[in-house]
């Protein structure tokens, strides 16, 4: 019984962190699906989202507003607006001018952008860890009080539900809406979509904006869940999310979700049953294995001769 509770606790830990990986991974996977480039600055967009949310929360607290739903919604909206405009601006400044060149050029431009944004936040906000208030406290407990108890915090539940809602909305958006249809068309053949009257520049901008908005959601909730943010944490999270995207099949939205969850659970099970030191060994080893046996990732479709 104890062991089972322990297992469930690690599973919950893994699913929580996995769902945030998934939220960030969407940004990588959508951009890759549409223009075939890896947006390495995406982790920084996520970090900026977290900082914006923190600034908004602090601002509201200074105004004396303490009602939780208002704080959350305002912080979320602020973070999404700032991150989205950042995502849009990054695309305009760093990627559009080099689009269609050799693959390496936008990649290097992306890495440059990532370093720029990281250092910009370093200068603007300082390099220290900043504490993030835990707005949602408490949770459910299972098991008897004198032995091991499995606990699910309200925060974990919020993160999980938010991810599910975001993913569902995004899938509906992609499959039902006009812009979504245009996104799919652009991802199949950018040149042809252009010829058929789709404003591809607008669609690509939209992709960056959606990805950034989801990253901002992850930024707010992860900031609250972990309790501190620093200018470097976007980079590490971005790396993990990118791994999740590749694991699930880059370019595929359900793949990002699946990849994120697998990665999160693999990490927490490794630290739970083996040792925390092997966490990254296992998660990246998993990535190598999947790339060896299924190079397109778990849910990725085989590449249809893209130029």
């Amino acid at each position, binding site marked *: 019984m*104890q062991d089972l509770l*322990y297992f469930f*606790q*690690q599973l919950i*830990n*893994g699913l*929580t*962190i996995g769902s945030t990986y998934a939220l960030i991974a969407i940004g990588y996977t959508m951009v890759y699906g549409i223009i075939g480039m890896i947006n390495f600055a995406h982790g920084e967009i996520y970090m900026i989202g977290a900082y914006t949310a923190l600034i908004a929360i602090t601002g509201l607290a200074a105004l004396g507003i303490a009602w939780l739903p208002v704080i959350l919604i305002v912080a979320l909206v602020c973070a999404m607006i700032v991150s989205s405009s950042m995502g849009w601006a990054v695309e305009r400044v760093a990627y559009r001018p080099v689009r269609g060149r050799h693959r390496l050029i936008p990649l290097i431009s992306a890495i440059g952008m990532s370093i720029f944004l990281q250092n910009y936040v*370093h200068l603007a906000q*300082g*390099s*220290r*860890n*900043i*504490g993030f208030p*835990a707005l949602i*406290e408490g*949770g459910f*407990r299972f098991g008897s009080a004198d032995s*091991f*108890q499995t*606990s699910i*915090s309200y*925060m974990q539940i919020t993160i999980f539900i938010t991810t599910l809602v975001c993913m569902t909305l995004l899938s509906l958006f992609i499959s039902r809406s006009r812009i979504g249809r245009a996104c799919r068309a652009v991802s199949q053949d950018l040149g042809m979509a252009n010829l058929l009257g789709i404003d591809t520049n607008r669609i690509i901008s939209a992709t960056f904006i959606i990805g950034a908005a989801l990253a901002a959601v992850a930024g707010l909730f*992860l900031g609250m869940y*972990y*309790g*501190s943010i*620093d200018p*470097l*944490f976007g980079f*590490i*999270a971005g790396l993990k999310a990118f791994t999740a995207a590749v694991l699930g099949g880059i370019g595929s939205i359900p793949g990002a979700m699946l990849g994120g969850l697998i990665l999160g659970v693999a*990490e*927490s099970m490794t*630290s*739970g049953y083996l*040792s*925390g*030191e092997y*966490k*990254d060994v296992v998660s990246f080893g998993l990535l190598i294995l999947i790339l060896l046996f299924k190079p397109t990732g778990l849910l990725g479709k085989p590449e249809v001769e893209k130029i």
Partner: protein
Amino acid sequence: MKTSVKKLVTAVSASVALMGAGHAAAEIKIGIAGPVTGPVAQYGDMQFSGARMAIERINADGGVNGEMLEAVEVDDVCDPKQAVTVANRLVNDGVRFVVGHLCSSSTQPASDIYEDEGILMVTPASTSPDITERGYELVFRTIGLDSMQGPVAGNHISSLNPERVAIVHDKQQYGEGIATAVRDTLKDAGVEVALFEGITAGDKDFSSLVTKLKQADVDYVYYGGYHPELGLILRQARQADLDAIFMGPEGVGNKDINTIAGDAAEGLLVTLPPAFDEKAENQDLVKAFQDKGEDPSGPFVLTSYTAVQLIAEGIEQAGSTEPFDVAAALRSASFNTPIGTVEYDEKGDMKSFEFVVYEWHSDGSKTPVN
């Protein structure tokens, strides 16, 4: 035309040579190398504020043998690669005395360069025993060693009669070194170490680790590392109702842990150098810091101050600015400093340095235990 160019070149080079000479006579460059940016920059702030104060006060007193001290400040971000780069920069700048570095993992590679180039280094913060184990002639420190701090922590924990203890570290030279020393002390005392595990510095999610600690039912957790990670572990442990008492080295003992951990920092045990700023004979110096709006209570402020003072006194005693002579002077005499009487052994370690156990509070204050 040709001659005028020649004249010009001669004139310029002569004046450059003169300038250079004048410069060298009036100033002794002291390199200050530590993290100005990066996750542990607050320790760097302590180091820089202590060293700057010492340089200011020594210069106000007429300098060293009539020569003024000049600070050359560089940022190593506590990153070993960066440390090598800035060490080379100090070499290029003609610096012959360095106060730094801060993190052991930076100090070690940088000290290789200093030793090769004949530069004297005094680290005010690096506690890894390895740094002085290599028989270097020009490496000194104004702080104790992990091998001194670990036993203090280990003995304190075992005096509390724990049932099971977990030891966690950040896999870095400082954290793992000190964690190993604590483990060995506990084992010698017959205390069960239920868990000895590394985490990745920079990680944010410690929920798995906390769950594991809960499962292992430990009553004490020792963490070897710095405050950003421990702050998060404390906070996440509090959220998961883990009711163990945490303890850490001086790397976790600063007020930033309160902004991360909040109330969860209450009751944390920390081994720190004794509060030098509370000593009666330092009150004059403490006031000087306060007049500048700086806080002298950080663990590395007065050790950095002392590092500069030792370099200055070493130069005075040796009567030369040749680092090897200064090193010999430092080894041969005993010095009266804000951190007490300093005497060096052959390796460049202080013959005695005391660590004290403090209890940390959620408002950032601390009270000595015992």
